[in-house]
């Protein structure tokens, strides 16, 4: 039961990683790619680390918990900083994007 739960989380994590990387290729501009890839890959990696916590010994699980907590905090932060930097550096949105609140706020 415990092992099958661990392998289930492992498979879910790898599937999310794959879907996130497909999004990295398929999406039209930086901002879309950033949200597709960052969210999916963060969830996938966290799921793999949860399966380490389930399958391995408690000492290894503690390390995996530490690593997962750090990834959970750092990955969205890095994506946010990168999107902000790209917007400030003048990277244009995709031409079919409907709304750019940051530019509106800066203008008004």
């Amino acid at each position: 039961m415990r092992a099958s739960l661990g392998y289930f989380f492992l498979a879910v994590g790898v599937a999310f990683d794959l879907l996130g990387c497909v999004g990295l290729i398929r999406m039209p501009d930086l901002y879309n790619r950033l949200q597709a890839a960052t969210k999916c890959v963060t969830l996938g990696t966290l799921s793999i680390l949860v399966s380490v916590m389930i399958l391995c010994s408690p000492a290894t699980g503690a390390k995996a918990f530490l690593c997962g907590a750090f990834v959970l905090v750092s990955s969205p932060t890095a994506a946010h900083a990168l999107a902000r930097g790209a917007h400030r550096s003048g990277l244009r949105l995709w031409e079919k994007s409907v709304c750019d609140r940051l530019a509106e706020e800066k203008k008004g």
Partner: protein
Amino acid sequence: MTLLFSVLLVCCALCLYRVARGPSSADRIMATDILGILMVGFCAILAISTKKDYYLTIAIAWALLSYIGVIALAKFLEGKGFDE
């Protein structure tokens, strides 16, 4: 296990494609960030399959280094120093 490793390798290849292709430099920075997070998952799967826990130490160090690198490059992209 081999299947999981090969799927993750395909993910890494897609990230490297985006690094090579990426129209802007922000795309390349993002793809290396994603590659770093994927490597954390890779190390975690290695820790499961070999039962050695030092792979997770590698994963933590890799996550820290990747995070610092991306923040530095994003600040560079923004055209500012670290002390706003």
